[in-house]
């Protein structure tokens, strides 16, 4: 298979990597298949054909109601949170030129958690208030880190150091907030901090859908090409005509927004943002941020993790964050052993 294929017409030309398209397409298909399977299982089982009929609206009213109002929101939340986290992780890894880049490392997740915990513990707010707290917390942390790290432009290294520092402070603050909580609120806070898509309704999903619908095109169409150039160093990218600060500001803003709003929807689901871009890169074997394959892979990963979490232990639902945490551990162990075999570690 050729690594790149060029399509040309009058005045336009597209350069496509078939392998990257295949990886993205395969992940999207897997995500869709697991989503259908996931919707079909439960106390009222349905075949995939029945699920599809209910989705397209040609099924009995009961089926349509169960699928569209009860089960689809949860699956949609899993798909969208996975996609949003993976996309933000891919942007962070590209911006700081380090495969460890993720909203957890850089403090944005901790910021969202602080906002949510303030709402749960101090205000006693309900779901919507907690979600709003997470968004505000995540964005405020983004602004804080940007201001602290900015000095004649934004540099990846400063961003990492400032981000780790802010993450540490906020983690301490989050711990303190939990010690202040009553037992019921503390349990609620811990569940939120694990990350779960259990019982999510359309009101939880729609905001994320809107943010993703705006941020994904901005990143995929507007930022992907300049991000490729920025990976070769600031001066070289500048020499090639990349407007560095504009691109970085836009990409960082979109990625922070994605991570904050996905935290609002599902809590801080761990490892998806870290792993998805890395796995996508290994599969596509293409340099660069691999934004679209990472997005599709993240969606598949999270919906699969939720599917497993619902059935791993009978009569006991595991929050999706527990499953992704375990997957993250397995991936890192695998990475360690393959790198050691290849004598790179």
């Amino acid at each position, binding site marked *: 298979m050729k690594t790149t294929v060029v399509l040309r017409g009058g005045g336009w030309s597209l*350069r496509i990597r078939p392998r990257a398209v295949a990886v993205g397409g395969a992940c999207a298909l897997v995500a869709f298949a697991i989503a259908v399977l996931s919707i079909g299982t439960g106390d009222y089982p349905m075949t995939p054909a029945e699920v599809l009929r209910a989705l397209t609206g040609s099924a009995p009213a009961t089926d349509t109601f169960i699928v569209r109002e009860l089960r689809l929101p949860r699956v949609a939340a899993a798909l969208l949170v996975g996609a949003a986290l993976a996309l933000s992780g891919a942007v962070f890894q590209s911006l700081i030129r380090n495969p460890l880049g993720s909203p957890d490392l850089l403090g944005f997740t901790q910021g969202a958690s602080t906002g949510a915990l303030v709402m749960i513990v101090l205000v006693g707010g309900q779901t919507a208030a907690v979600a709003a707290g997470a968004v505000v917390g995540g964005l405020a942390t983004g602004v804080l880190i940007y201001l602290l790290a900015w000095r004649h432009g934004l540099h990846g290294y400063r961003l990492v150091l400032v981000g780790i520092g802010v993450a540490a402070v906020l983690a301490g603050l989050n711990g303190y907030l939990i010690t202040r909580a009553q037992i019921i609120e503390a349990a609620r806070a811990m569940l939120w901090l694990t990350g779960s898509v259990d019982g999510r309704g359309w009101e939880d999903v729609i905001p994320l859908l809107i943010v993703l619908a705006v941020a994904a095109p901005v990143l995929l169409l507007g930022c992907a*090409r300049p991000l*490729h150039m920025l990976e070769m160093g600031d*001066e*070289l990218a500048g*020499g090639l*005509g990349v407007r560095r600060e504009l691109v970085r500001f836009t990409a960082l803003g979109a990625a922070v927004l994605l991570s904050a709003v996905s935290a609002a929807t599902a809590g801080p689901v761990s490892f998806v943002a870290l792993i998805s871009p890395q796995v996508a890169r290994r599969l596509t074997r293409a340099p660069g941020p691999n934004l679209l394959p990472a997005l599709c892979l993240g969606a598949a990963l999270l919906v699969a993790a939720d599917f497993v979490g619902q059935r791993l232990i009978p009569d006991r639902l595991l929050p999706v964050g527990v499953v992704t945490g375990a997957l993250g551990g397995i991936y890192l162990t695998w990475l360690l052993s393959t790198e050691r075999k290849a004598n790179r570690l």
Partner: protein
Amino acid sequence: MAAQHRTKGEPAVTSAPLTRDTEITGTTSRLSGMSLTLGYQRRIVAEGLTVSIPDQSFTVIIGPNACGKSTLLRALARALRPSSGTVLLDGRDIHELPARTVARTLGLLPQSAIAPDGITVADLVARGRYPHQGLLRQWSAEDERVVREAMEATGVAELADAYVDELSGGQRQRVWIAMALAQQTPLLLLDEPTTYLDIAHQIEVLELCARLHEEQGRTLVAVLHDLNQAARYATHLIAMRDGTVVAEGDPRTVVTEELVERVFGIRCRVLDDPETGTPLVIPAAGRRHRAARQPAGVGAGGTGRESTVD
């Protein structure tokens, strides 16, 4: 190859580049810096610096470490904004021109260039086409042709599918130059293109630069460390010290014993390069070496001790 051209018929050659140089200085300069103050945050590197790069020249900037030569190059390439003064590109302030316009006129190969993991030679060279591309114009027939020609001109065409991480230092540097060539800019700025290369690869890169300058008529500006290489390849030399230009012009007239002492603070002799007739700088021997040349017994006792003290 370029140097061989220059070797043939030494007396004739000395006059030929000279007349060409006077033509150059007589004509225009598309890139110049006017009373530049350059620096980083709190440290000022240069003040009141004025230089102009003659069109179609192979200009080489030399000077001791930390004299501001790379800083000047970065300012000329728009990678550093001067705290005062202006860099003019085609008569306009380079910071007021759109980034893409600058990128189509002037290419920069910085020292800090990073090859992304797992990128092939062809992919890296293709990235030089960025300022000519757009979302719906990702890979035109012209892009393809220019990239192929850039790889052929730098001799990396047969490495097209190799991974950049697996190349030798000299090959990698040629790939970066190919990328800069693919940018198709009449002006090309190279920051220490020979650093970290062994002598064979240094010559390889400089021969390539000389050929690009002669055959393609591009204006090249390079920062180099080796004075003799600079004298051999440059058509225009800029010698800097402590953020000021000490001398500039044809290396045959500029490189003298006095200049080397003023710029680098070392005593030396300047001979004619037996290969090219260009100035050849031979640093004066240190005390130890002079002692070693004397008959045994006279300075031998001190030599050993001095070398350990040194």
